């Protein structure tokens, strides 16, 4: 009898779901463009125009091109997790994909976990790519002793950013609004977080705000193990703590407010109308 059969084990299902999300990622050109290609071009432009300046931080001086390269590496990891999930999940909701999976025996945590796992993998790949560019073009050095701290930092922080992305996906009613909201959060935050423009003497209020938001601590935590003068070998626990708090808040918010079907009057109705007239 069918009743006697067991459900397939969760781990292979999780890996399959993550693989599915990775496949979707590489087949959505705009996602690849915004996550990797655009930050790469921005990096090339900034470093072509910023000369040989040195950036001074408490541990010493960075060549500006290495500093920016590492910061943008961190930024791509945020794009791959926070921005991508906040963009794509509402689109899939309007396509009915979320509701379709909700109709199957797939456990919810495996479905959501597949999205998060894929996002973290994309983030890690983006960081590796950007750092490889940095090593090749901008004199970034990645000491072996720094790698464990770097790996822990990227995995913990990107998981937290993924949770924040899910929270935005949960809170924003339509797909068209979601991409605007996600960018409206990320881009201003990037400007005060040393990503595109290193802040050398920011106003105190802005400095405090940047340190309470999750992006600046993440940039700091990625830069610390790659510092040209004094690379750290342990993760920046304080900075990671700030990010994890944001992640926990995002997770709680996503769990409480997540919606599986599109809001009435949103994209679904428009698409149905299009289908009926087509």
């Amino acid at each position, binding site marked *: 009898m*069918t009743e006697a*059969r*067991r*459900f*397939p084990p969760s781990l*292979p*299902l999780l890996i*399959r*779901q993550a693989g*599915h999300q990775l*496949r*979707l990622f590489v*087949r*959505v050109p705009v996602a690849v463009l915004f996550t990797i290609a655009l930050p790469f071009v921005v990096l090339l432009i900034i470093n072509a125009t910023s000369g040989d300046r040195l950036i001074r931080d408490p541990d010493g001086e960075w060549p500006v091109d290495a500093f920016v390269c590492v910061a943008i590496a961190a930024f791509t990891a945020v794009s791959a997790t926070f921005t991508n999930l906040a963009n794509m999940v509402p689109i*899939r909701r309007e*396509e*009915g*994909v*979320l*509701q*379709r*999976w*909700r*109709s*199957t*025996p*797939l*456990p919810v945590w495996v479905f959501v976990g597949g999205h998060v796992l894929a996002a973290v993998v994309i983030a890690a790949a983006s960081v590796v790519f950007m750092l490889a560019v940095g090593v090749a073009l901008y004199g970034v050095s990645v000491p072996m002793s720094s790698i464990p701290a770097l790996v822990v930092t990227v995995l913990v922080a990107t998981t937290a950013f993924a949770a924040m992305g899910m929270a935005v996906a949960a809170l924003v009613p339509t797909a068209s609004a979601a991409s605007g909201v996600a960018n409206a959060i990320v881009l201003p935050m990037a400007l005060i977080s040393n990503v595109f423009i290193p802040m050398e003497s920011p106003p105190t209020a802005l400095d405090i705000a940047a340190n309470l938001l999750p992006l600046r601590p993440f940039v700091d935590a990625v830069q610390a193990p790659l510092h040209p003068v004094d690379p750290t070998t342990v993760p920046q626990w304080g900075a990671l703590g700030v990010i994890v708090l944001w992640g926990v808040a995002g997770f709680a918010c996503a769990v409480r407010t997540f919606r*599986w*079907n599109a809001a009435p009057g949103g994209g*679904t109705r428009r*698409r*149905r109308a299009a*289908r009926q007239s*087509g």
Partner: protein
Amino acid sequence: MTSPAIKVNDLVVEYMSSQGTIRAVNGLDLSIAEGEVYALLGENGAGKTSTVEVLEGHRSRVGGQVEILGIDPTAGGSRRRELRDQIGIVLQTSGIEPEITPREALTLFGAVYRNPYSLSEVVERVGLGDFVDQRVGSLSGGQRRRLDLAVAVIGRPRVLFLDEPTTGFDPSARRNAWELVRSLHADGTTILLTTHYLEEAGFLADRVGVISRGEMLVEGPPRELQQAHGRSVMSVEIAGAGSLSDVEASVAAVLDGISSTLAWQGTRLLITTEETTKVLERITRWALSTGADLSEWSIERPSLEQVFLELNADIDREGDDD
């Protein structure tokens, strides 16, 4: 198994709109036996999709009891998973990413069930062979609905929900979908379908329920509904009784007191009535006494469509009286 596959008692569904709370389903009862094919008919806004969404677990209810295979669709945890493993759903929106192929989608969905059909079996039964490796985004509307059907049945469901499964199909695709439903029926699958197409309901369903304004108007096997609720159309050629208008006047006089309407189709007189025996008797007697010649008598039972239209017209008339 004696307990019904789908059991609904006094279901009430409401939703909020800008005009306030709207009651979409108002005390609906439904009992569908295991292995039965049941068609829910109703106009847009009658409450059929709301009902099905509650059964699928996609909409919450205000009141009433609902059980699918003995499990409340709002159940959580392992009961939820157990139920989802045994049901298949064709939603009105497809819910498959346009960037993947039917083969990829079916492999992905098949992996989550305990006892799925094999990919090749589903591809063959639903007829996806021509486009199994094309991107979903490039499929025609009809091909996409076939994929929806395939995804809904890949888990070998005991209960299948089909919400307007053939909307947008061309006639041959509709025939294929019907064949599939019939073969699943033959396998013992319980099927609840909603449809606008009365022909579809009449062809597929063991029983039909007509709902209006969230209430069950009438239910039963399609043939019984046709017999009990519709007016037959009788037609006859009448010669030797003067001009068409003379004939119409005479027949109208002869049928005085019988509820009927007259119309012409060429030279054939069409008489729509519930009282076919009386009409036959009166017209025959009139023809014998006047020497008129009757030929080509025919009596057609109403289509399910006429039954449906009349039931809804009755409801509208009652509404106008308020």
